């Protein structure tokens, strides 16, 4: 049976209707069901917007650790009434815009129906729809990142760099894309004559230097403006907190249980600790710093050097996947970060060929199963009060991590 062909417009309409449906179901669930649909972060953004509306700092809201731009853009939320949903509508629009940009950046050589299928991975993805309709702001970031890619593909490197700087201002992690863009651009210009025989330095040319400069100006300009408004608390909550946090609460990260122990270390009686415990103390105490090592080495150095020049979008996908895999905090929302590039990756990878389709399905199954395993133990801890830290969460987060590493291996080999 042939799959009925649908146009881009029809897919977009279906995606819009689905989002509207999820949005209204969310309103119903919030009103009548014991577990709320709306993300707790949405309440944080909305409260921060209220403070801004009152002429105060958004950082008066505990746990608001984002750029003030987000609170500013949600100002209508503070007007009350139906406007409290303004943020969700904005996130849904950004989510759809991201889809449009994905469509526009997919290689033109891919046949139309395959492009529609790949686009559907984003536009009809229930995880993507749920995240934006619950009020998570990730889609604003994905939209900015796709604008970066869109202008880059159109060779408008200035606009691309401006959006990249703004993306990094929104969340720090897109900084890992700078090496990939720069290395990709190193093949699009001549090196400076005085370093053309110097390894590494001969990658530098006027194009990538300009790209770097505009990115830094864009990022620096946003940061300077926000610093002028909110001073040190902007830097502290938007940047320093994320660099130094020890997130002890359970999440998908491999480091999670280790970080729980590390956060408790200064409070544990030393007579309860073995010699080996004490030997590990140095590492565990600074794990939040050590964790950046392998994460940045793989996602910002090794992968760009391997893939940026041959397949930039596959490179961005694998970079992001690696960054999330090795991150010291992982929540489901982070998966959105690499999902925006999945259509591009699958569009060019041989993993979607008939020859490798079984392998692709197995990879997807492994990812879902290892995640489900962790979620089961998290549910037991969170809602049944069972202590599953060691027997459940530690083992399943190791399983999830190694599964992700295996997937990374496949992605790199089949890119």
């Amino acid at each position, binding site marked *: 049976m042939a799959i009925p062909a649908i146009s881009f417009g029809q897919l977009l309409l279906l995606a819009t209707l689905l989002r509207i449906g999820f949005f209204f179901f969310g309103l119903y669930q919030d009103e009548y069901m014991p577990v709320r649909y709306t993300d707790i972060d949405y309440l944080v953004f909305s409260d921060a917007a209220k403070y801004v509306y009152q002429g105060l700092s958004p950082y008066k809201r505990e746990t608001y650790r984002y750029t003030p731009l987000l609170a500013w853009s949600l100002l209508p939320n503070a007007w009350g009434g139906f406007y409290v949903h303004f943020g969700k509508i904005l996130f849904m629009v950004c989510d759809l815009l991201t889809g449009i940009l994905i469509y526009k950046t997919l290689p033109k050589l891919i046949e139309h129906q395959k492009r529609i299928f790949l686009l559907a991975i984003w536009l009809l993805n229930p995880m993507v729809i749920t995240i934006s309709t619950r009020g998570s702001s990730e889609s604003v970031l994905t939209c900015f990142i796709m604008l970066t890619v869109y202008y880059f593909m159109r060779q408008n490197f200035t606009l691309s760099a401006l959006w990249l700087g703004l993306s990094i201002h929104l969340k720090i992690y897109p900084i890992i894309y700078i090496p990939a863009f720069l290395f990709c651009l190193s093949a699009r210009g001549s090196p400076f004559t005085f370093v053309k025989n110097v390894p590494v330095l001969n990658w530098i040319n006027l194009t990538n230097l300009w790209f770097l400069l505009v990115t830094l100006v864009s990022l620096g300009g946003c940061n300077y403006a926000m610093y002028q408004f909110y001073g040190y608390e902007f830097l502290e909550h938007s940047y320093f907190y994320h660099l130094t946090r020890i997130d002890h609460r359970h999440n998908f990260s491999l480091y999670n249980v280790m970080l729980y*122990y590390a956060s408790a270390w200064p409070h544990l009686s030393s007579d309860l600790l073995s010699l080996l415990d004490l030997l590990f103390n140095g590492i565990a105490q600074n794990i939040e710093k050590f964790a950046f090592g392998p994460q940045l080495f793989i996602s910002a150095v090794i992968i760009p050097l391997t893939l940026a020049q041959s397949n930039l979008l596959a490179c961005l996908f694998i970079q992001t996947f690696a960054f999330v895999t090795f991150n010291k905090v992982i929540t489901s929302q982070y998966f959105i970060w690499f999902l925006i590039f999945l259509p591009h990756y699958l569009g060019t990878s041989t993993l979607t060929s008939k020859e490798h389709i079984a392998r692709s399905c197995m990879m997807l199954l492994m990812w879902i199963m290892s995640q489900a395993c962790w979620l089961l133990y998290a549910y037991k801890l969170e809602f049944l009060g069972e202590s599953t*830290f060691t027997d459940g969460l530690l083992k399943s987060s190791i399983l999830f*991590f190694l599964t992700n590493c295996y997937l990374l291996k496949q992605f790199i080999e089949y890119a």
Partner: protein
Amino acid sequence: MFHPYTFPHTILLSTTTMRRRITLIHSNADEVSVKDITSSSLVFDAGVNGAVEEKYSWSSTSGSYISQLRVQINRAHELDHKLHNWSVPFAYSYQYGLHVYAQPNSAGIEHQKLFYDDVNVILKDLLGMAVQPGNWIQSLNSLYYHSSEIPALSNLPSHSVVADLWTSLDYVQTSDSTTLKLFNPNTTFTSYDVSDILEYAEVGVFTVEAHSSRDEVILSGVRVILNENNESSDPKIQRTVFHTKPRHRYLSAPSANILIDPKGLHPVLSISLIPQAPADHDIDTCKLFAYLTLNKSVFFDKYQIPENVTILAQHGTKDLELPAYSLEEWGTELLLELDSASDLDLTLHSRYQLPNKSASNVTETIDKAVLFYACDAISDSHIISQSAFDNKQNIGGSFEGFFTDDCVFYHLSDRGTLPVEIPTLEGSATMINLATTAALIFGIFIVLSSVFTRFQRKKEKTE
């Protein structure tokens, strides 16, 4: 080193300045007869059963850095006043456990360390304990420390009627005086002899007249003054009838149900069967409130309040993420206003506990919410504040400080604590660190091997 503060034990044991007042209220069904009475002693025919309050007061200085200090302890789990109706005039219905309130003077604000040192000198002497500076929280107009662990009281005054049997204690030290009150709602008073200490002592033995009402309590009985004048050998005895308006009142309806539903890391404090508002003659508007003292193991997220609840005060740690072991403050004090007497679920969130090598759960106790109506008194409200039974002070007194002097309170819940099981990390740090590190190294190897394979393949192709 010279310390400007006069040590409290010196004061407690002083025989020159202390005044004693013992108030006994017994059931009006009991007959009381005195066997023997002198200028410094009183002996009853048989033990008299009732509620006893002992008040000791003396002049003192609170040190150079303290403006006021108040220590309140409640060891009773139930509302004694409901069990023993003769104790109705007394006001000891605050939250279970130890409560310390301290207010620095201007020098104390400037020299905080010296202020804390001064406070701890008093606490060490009175309770044998100290409170670290970080353990306090800033309450309405004072610092506040609370614990459900009750320390043993040291240096009790001699000749105490209730001695160690007190269920409630109220110690107040201001810049020029100190009072200590001990209370037991149901004890037996047999005799009182202060002949060897020559201190002024006043003993009142009363009963609540049958025609009293909840808002107007009439007491009749005798006051006996002992050691009033050392030269006279006769005690001073006065028949007394007076009326009082209690600030704290109790409904005849059963107490509201307060339970904890474990619900994993999010225990729910469930309040049901809340009695309707009272309708006494001397009150006007009544509003329903819940007062919570939550130790740091759990917290209430002010951004997740039920629709019919308003937060009027939230003091203490406001952090929504830190584990319990990273917090120095003892917890949070909350005053909530409830729109109606309908059932209410307050979702709390437990903080992560210290890892444990052998146990997978820790049991923490949280205080039951204090549920009450606060009503404006509209007639003779001055009598409430002037009553000898009223304990309202500038600082402390549980939720009293949040309300004006003309407020009366109707208690709807029993005191006590509820156990909460919190799952914790069980296992050895070595095993966890080794497993994590091994997985990390293996994961890096998997990724790098694929990069190597890709380069090899590329190299083969170009060759």
